[in-house]
């Protein structure tokens, strides 16, 4: 027998906005059960010929019971995923002010280029001679990234920002091991308390202990506190610039000199490179390595839901330890160095990823770079910073900026303006959903109470920003007017009401289970 098709079940369980329609649909926005719940045994998307009589040759490994996958027809499965996609919110639908994520527009030109058959259909195991164009493109992206950062070397294969961090810290560890002629005795990596959580996680994964550097009253690294922590146990420092408070770290050169004098290396987290691309070359500030989120600064935010890419630029000191593979250009064209034996004097610490890196992201990033040009990328940074400052200057009389003065690409508010209103940062963010806005980043960075981190990016027009600002001001007015019940009840217009984050964390339900066990259902 089939599983029951109780279409309203999911809606009632989590509390949909409208529960008084027959099936929980809201107008033409349709309530959608799980694929398993619309199982229709016998339905199938293809006609397969009857195999006729045959002798199974699987012996004892032949499947004994049903596999338990749902059966649906092609129109049913298309409708299922289309309905789900209608519930998704995307940068193509509206403003996406999620701080520290650089949710910028992904130009359609990128998508056209990445679908060129020579890129889209290339296989990583094709002979080198048949993918010269792909290698040339990887080499071109590498060249641009080295130029834009002022760094001499690059590892292209890391698959995302945190993977790039792993690459950078592994290179640091390899350099220290090499210098000390054995496993390094340096055990500590310094990380500011405003850092992305991935920074301390990366250091810990690489076997280091994490020592937090406090922020000063200006929201920047406290250089004196940092200097006091330096000794011959320190392997390096990881700093994001601009930092997660949306502020430029002005003491980078001094920090670089201090860490180098102490025998450590300087990791720069390039997640916020969008604010300074084309304007500042991090290599000029004395860093040793930096990952670049291609899927932030060079479009395709959040990897378009697919993979990101986190190439890592390296200083001369770390370059010899870069992971394989890398592209080289010789007399016979481009080829790939894939093994340490072929690496000459270099001492690659190994390989981080199968094949060559995220090729699709390289193509999109290259299309973005070439279509913008150096001046265009500089304009990107200018406009991103201008937009964030426009937002903060239009909201600072009703909301409370966490720090004084201009910001970089994102602006940070604390929750002082909500004091005594009965409205929390979370409530405020949920109310934004009903107004048609994806919320900003909440409760991060941790150093700011009830933080709200807004990154408009250069994508938004003045008109779009003005609409956003008007909504924010109206919500602040409503909170101050004592209408806290409306905030606590929000969101009311979304496919699901407020989710129980606590129960989801304490008692997660990670898989669907049939009401009737599959084996019994098959009988």
């Amino acid at each position, binding site marked *: 027998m089939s599983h029951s098709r109780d279409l309203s079940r999911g809606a009632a369980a989590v509390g949909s906005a409208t529960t008084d329609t027959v099936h929980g649909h809201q107008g033409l926005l349709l309530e959608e059960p799980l694929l398993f719940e619309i199982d229709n045994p016998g339905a199938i998307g293809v006609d397969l010929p009857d195999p006729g009589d045959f002798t199974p040759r699987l012996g004892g490994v032949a499947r004994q019971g049903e596999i338990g996958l749902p059966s649906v027809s092609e129109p049913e499965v298309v409708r299922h995923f289309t309905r789900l996609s209608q519930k998704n919110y995307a940068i193509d639908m509206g403003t996406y002010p999620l701080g520290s994520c650089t949710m910028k527009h992904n130009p359609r030109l990128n998508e056209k280029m990445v679908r060129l058959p020579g890129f889209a259909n290339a296989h990583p195991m094709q002979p080198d001679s048949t993918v010269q164009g792909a290698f040339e493109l990887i080499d071109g992206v590498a060249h641009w990234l080295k130029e834009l950062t002022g760094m001499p070397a690059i590892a292209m294969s890391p698959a995302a920002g945190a993977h790039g961090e792993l690459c950078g810290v592994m290179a640091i560890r390899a350099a220290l091991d090499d210098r000390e002629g054995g496993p390094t005795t340096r055990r500590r990596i310094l990380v500011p308390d405003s850092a992305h*959580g991935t920074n301390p996680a990366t250091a810990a994964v690489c076997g280091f202990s994490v020592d937090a550097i406090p922020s000063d009253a200006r929201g920047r690294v406290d250089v004196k506190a940092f200097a006091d922590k330096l000794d011959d146990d320190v392997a390096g420092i990881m700093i994001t610039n601009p930092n997660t408070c949306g502020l430029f770290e002005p003491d980078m050169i001094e920090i670089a000199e201090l860490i180098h004098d102490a025998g450590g290396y300087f990791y720069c987290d390039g997640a916020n490179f969008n604010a300074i691309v084309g304007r500042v070359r991090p290599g000029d500030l004395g860093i040793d390595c930096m990952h670049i989120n291609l899927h932030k600064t060079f479009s395709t935010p959040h990897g378009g839901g697919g993979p990101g890419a986190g190439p890592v630029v390296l200083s001369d000191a770390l370059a010899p330890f870069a992971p394989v593979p890398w592209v080289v250009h010789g007399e016979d064209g481009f080829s790939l160095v894939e093994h340490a034996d072929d690496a000459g004097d270099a001492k690659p610490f190994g390989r981080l990823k199968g094949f060559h890196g995220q090729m699709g992201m390289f193509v999109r990033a290259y299309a973005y770079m070439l279509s913008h040009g150096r001046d265009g990328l500089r304009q990107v940074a200018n406009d991103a910073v201008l937009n964030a400052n426009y937002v903060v200057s239009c909201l600072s009389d009703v909301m409370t900026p966490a720090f004084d003065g201009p910001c970089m690409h994102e602006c940070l508010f604390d929750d002082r303006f909500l004091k005594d209103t009965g409205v929390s940062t979370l409530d405020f963010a949920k109310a934004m959903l009903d107004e048609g806005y994806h919320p900003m980043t909440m*409760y991060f960075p*941790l150093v700011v109470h009830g933080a709200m981190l807004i990154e408009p990016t250069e994508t938004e027009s003045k008109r779009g920003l003005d609409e956003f600002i008007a909504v924010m001001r109206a919500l602040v007015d409503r909170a101050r007017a004592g209408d806290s019940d409306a905030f606590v009840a929000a969101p009311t217009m979304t496919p699901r009401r407020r989710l129980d*984050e*606590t129960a989801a*964390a*304490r008692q997660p339900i990670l898989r669907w289970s049939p009401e009737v066990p599959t084996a019994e259902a098959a009988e």
Partner: protein
Amino acid sequence: MADRKYTEDHEWVEVDGETGVIGISDYAQEQLGDVVFVELPDVGKVLDQRDEAAVIESVKAAAEVYTPVSGEVIEVNEELNNDPSLVNSDAHGEGWFAKLQLTDPTELDALMDEATYKTFVESLS
């Protein structure tokens, strides 16, 4: 009543003879929001003052809990593995983290008493 002392990082220690029970303050649990996971130290672990004694995860953040005093862990609150919400419902009681055999009771002198901590918390808001 046993003597309870506080740190500026919102941990408390309640001393009874040569042992001390540690936890986080009610103010700290309120700031963290609903606690969803607590990683406790191993029994037998020797901690110096301000070493990381536990890690606490809430819906908003992850935070380290530093021990206010040096000592050896002689007992941990296993109940927190089953029900981390005890930290929210009773931070100063059933939400305790660990019991230590103190190695340097003089460390207590530098910690805040109840009244001083109360004043300190009021100065933060």
